[in-house]
Structure formats: C-alpha cells, structure tokens
C-alpha cells in the first residue's frame, strides 16, 4: 500500500483500502473559512446542535481579513458567535492570516493527519505528510455534525523532479512547468506524490508551494514523504505525537512522470488558464500595472526575502504598484525581524494585512479593466483578481519582484546577486 492508503485505512478503522473504494474517515482537523456561512447554516439544517469535537474544529477569518463590506462583517460576526457558543478555541481571527500558513505556523499540520478545510488549496499539507483536501460547505457541515466524511480512495500518481535547479528557478517554476505539460485536469480525483532528488534542494516553504499548486492540476491531495528537511521544521512547531507512514516497495502508481529540471528556466503561466505555461522569455517587456506577492502559494517569509534582495536600495517602477501580502502574522513578524519589510517599503512596496486579500478578487489590490498583473498566487482565471478583462501572469516571487522593479516582465535571473 501507499503511505496515503495506510493513512486513510487507519482513519477509516480498516487494515487496508482499495483504489476506488468509498470509505468513511475520522477527521483530525476540520477548518472553515469566513467565506462559507453556508457551513453553519447546513449544520443546523441537518438538525445538529453541537460540533463533534470543538478541539478538532478551526475557524479562519482569512479571506475577508479585515472585513471590507458590511455583509462580510455580518458573516464574520456570526462565525465568531458560533465559535464562542460551541467552545471552539481555535478561532483564527483577522490578525492571523491565510488558513494553510496559519496551520503550518501553529504546528497543526503534521504527518498522518487528515485535514479537511473549505478551501481547495488544502492539498498544501501534503508537504508535511498529511492528507489535506478541500471540500464545500455542506461536506464540512457533515464533518462538524458527525466527525467523519466519505472519500473515494484515489489513484496515486508520482511526479519526480530530478536535478539541481538553476539560480533564479524555484518550486513555483517547476510546478508551473509540470502543469503546463500535463494540463489543468491531469490529476482530477487523484492524489499526487512528489518525489525525486530535487526535493533535497527545496525547503519546506518551497515544498508547500509545490503541494499547494497540485490543486491546479485537479488533485484531491498531495504528498511528500517526510524526510530530514520536514522533520527539522516539524520539530520546531509540532508538539503532539504523530505517525509517519511509509509506502511499500512494491506499490504500483497509476502513473509516474519524471521532469529533469536542471536546465529549467523561469516559467510563467499566461492569461487565462493556469496550464498556459511558457518560458518567461516569451513575455519579456510586457508592461505591468500591478505586481502582487502573497497568498498561500507565494506569500511566505522566504518569498518576501527574495523580493527584498532584488529591491534592496532600489525603487519600484513609477508606473507599477507592488502589493505585498504576507501569508500570516508569523510570516509578517519574521519579515519585519529580518528587515525585509523596511527594505521593501523604502523601495515603494505597499504592505497589506496578512490574509487572502486580492488573491480571490474581493479586496485590497483589485485590478482595473485592461490592467496586467504578475503575481505569486495560483490562479489566473478571467476576473480572478478584479475586472474580467485584467490579464494575470503567474510566476515565482523573483519574477514578480524583478518585474515590479522594471515595470515590465523581465527575466529575474538578471536581477539576483
């Protein structure tokens, strides 16, 4: 069996599982975002009164942090009251940041866990050897009421990255390249394990970006076998006991693909589909109205550090706005301590409260008609970050920062010391 299958079997109270089998699993952590008041409505509509276990429920005020309309404020108010009534202590209010980063920061993402959140990028937690998957409001309400959810045991695909990345090439470039080759629906209903020698050159932040983007191939979950790099991170954050599962040597993947990334160049996903990926050279010179660094994909301290190195002592182009949204409070504090915030503010960047901000096109950095944006986020669908005619390019933090500096798309390798 695969490590993921062993994990699912354990949580379903079985000794084994088969691909395609429908199983009912106990959920270790159920997360709700402030977008989905339906979750609470459905919970009561189903006749439930108390959540299954208030310590296994976490509430995130991240997408609207802080509220920018009265409706959002009303929704958040109802969520807070629900948490207080139900004894849910893990109320991550508007000071905390994006759900996935908050879980990682607080040591709530760990190997062997099943974490289900009302957010499609819950695949991020595969970076820690957890089974993370996104669901809608009604599914989450079922967990709140019963502590369990049904899953179809997925086929598992292995994607290997081999080789040492060139300077200026990041996990974001690798995963964009893979999505470009394989397509936005390549892994629908399936789980993806990432493997290969390149992982030894990727820190936890980069691995999170990779697992996060597996959602953009349609994956249900992702997985990286915990290793020394994972353990160094977990040892600092996680205090609870956990179990690491291993894949049997004779396990057969539904598909196995290897990318040699030693010659990979910086990549961009061009409007308006995430699998529209090319070498950045194809787009050099396109004027940028807004450069955006943030989100659960590309808003960590490491990403902000890359931008600070590129903009140190320099100025953002006068025709470009550079919006930076730290993924969490922890990220912002680290970026402040390391001096990144000062460097970037002096260069002309605009800092926004930790949270989702304009990543989903609701507030704090919306795009006007016809504007072009380069961003570290994960989706460039029409209208994702504002007006439907705005053009969104997805790239690495270095590509975004270098383009902010020059006011147009440039090859970030020319701007890294």
């Amino acid at each position, binding site marked *: 069996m695969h490590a993921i299958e062993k994990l699912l079997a354990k949580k379903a109270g079985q000794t084994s599982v088969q691909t395609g089998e429908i199983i009912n699993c106990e959920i270790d952590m159920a997360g709700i975002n402030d977008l989905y008041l*339906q979750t609470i*409505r459905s919970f009561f509509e189903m006749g439930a009164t108390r959540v299954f276990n208030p310590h296994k429920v976490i509430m995130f005020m991240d997408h609207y942090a802080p509220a920018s309309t009265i409706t959002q404020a009303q929704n958040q108010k109802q969520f807070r009251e629900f948490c207080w009534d139900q004894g849910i202590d893990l109320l991550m209010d508007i000071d905390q940041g994006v759900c996935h980063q908050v879980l990682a920061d607080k040591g709530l993402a760990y190997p062997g866990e099943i974490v289900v959140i009302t957010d499609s990028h819950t695949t991020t937690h595969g970076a820690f050897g957890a089974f993370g998957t996104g*669901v*809608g409001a*009604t599914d989450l309400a079922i967990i709140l009421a019963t502590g369990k959810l049904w899953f179809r045991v997925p086929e598992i695909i292995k994607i290997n990255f081999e080789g040492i990345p060139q300077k200026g090439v990041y996990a974001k470039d690798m995963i964009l390249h893979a999505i470009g080759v394989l397509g936005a629906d390549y892994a629908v209903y399936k789980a993806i394990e990432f493997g290969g020698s390149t992982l030894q050159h990727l820190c936890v932040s980069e691995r999170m970006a990779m697992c996060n983007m597996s959602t953009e191939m349609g994956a249900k979950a992702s997985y990286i076998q915990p290793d020394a790099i994972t353990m160094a991170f977990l040892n600092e954050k996680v205090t609870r006991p956990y179990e690491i599962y291993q894949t049997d040597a004779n396990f057969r993947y539904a598909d196995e693909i290897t990318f040699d990334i030693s010659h990979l160049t910086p990549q961009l996903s061009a409007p308006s589909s995430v699998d529209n990926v090319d070498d950045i050279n194809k787009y050099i010179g396109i004027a940028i109205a807004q450069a955006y660094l943030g989100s659960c994909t590309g808003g960590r301290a490491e990403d902000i550090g890359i931008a600070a190195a590129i903009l140190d002592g320099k100025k953002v182009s006068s025709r470009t706005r550079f919006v930076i949204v730290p993924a969490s409070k922890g990220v912002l504090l680290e970026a402040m301590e390391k001096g990144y915030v000062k460097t970037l503010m002096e260069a002309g960047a605009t800092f926004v409260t930790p949270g989702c901000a304009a990543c989903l096109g*609701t507030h704090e950095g919306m795009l006007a008609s016809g504007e072009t944006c380069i961003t570290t986020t994960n989706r460039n*669908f029409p209208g994702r970050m504002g007006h439907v005619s705005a053009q969104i390019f997805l790239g690495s933090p270095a590509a975004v920062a270098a383009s902010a500096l020059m006011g147009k798309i440039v090859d970030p390798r020319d701007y890294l010391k």
Partner: protein
Amino acid sequence: MKPILTGKAFLFGNNIDTDQIYPGRFVELTDAKDIAKYAMHGVDPEFITKVHDGDIIVAGTNFGCGSSREHAAITLKEVGIGAIIAESFARIFYRNAINLGLPLFICPHISTLIQHNDRVSIDVFTGAISSASGLLSKAEPLSEYVVHILESGGIKSLVKKQLEARSS
C-alpha cells in the same frame, strides 16, 4: 427525482472555473435567492435572463475547477438548472453539486454532439442522452451512492435522518 430530465442546452467550453460560474466578489452573499442573481456572471452576465427551469448545461472538460465555493453549485441549482453534462468535472464542484441534489453526468465528447439551444434529454438511470435527432451518447452511470443522495433530494436530508436515528 424524475427519471428523464429534459431541457434546453446551454453550451460552454473547457475549464469553466468557479470564478466564471460565480465571481469571488459575490461570495459574501449567503442566501440562495441572492446567490441566484449571479449565475455564470463571469462568462455571460445575461445568462440569468435566458435560463429556464429544467435547462441543461453542457460543457467540455474540468467544469467547475478552481475554488471550493459551494455558491457555484447553489447558483446553478437555484436558477433551475436540471442537470449538467460535461466531459469531466472538477472534484469539489462534483461533490458540492451532488450534495445539493443537482445531478451531474460525465460523457466524453458531449460538447461536440450538442448545439446551443438544442432540446436535450438524459435518462438518470441509464445515462442515455438524446435530442430531436435521436440517441446521441451515453453518460457514465451514476454510482449507487450518488443515486442514493440524489433520490433523497441532497445529502442534508440523509444526514438529518442519520442524526435523528442516532438520538432516538
């Protein structure tokens, strides 16, 4: 649930994502009646003036990709969409729609067999899809579990019964 669903077809392409079905800036709305005002707003803001009860959406691959927002399924159900036939669906959208009792059918090449405004029928149990010109294709049969949810009018009433059984 009626065994044969019939309606006018609305044809869409590949990778119709949830931002096109229901743009992010309207996600703060929580009542189904309000959510219904913005169905397919990202592709065609006039869609809600053209759609009638029982109409059928026909699409290419990966329909409903992107965000987990249940609004995308709620809005289509609320404007009266009777079924969606696509070449494939994104996973979360699939779960959301079935949970709400909105039937989805997976059928390869369907977007090349049906024209905009065609009258289309689908047999829920056999998956047979037909139009005025006769049988067009056959969708993958729905799993027993999915049929059970649809026949209960959505998963909420199922869970409700389970919870009542537990407490009685």
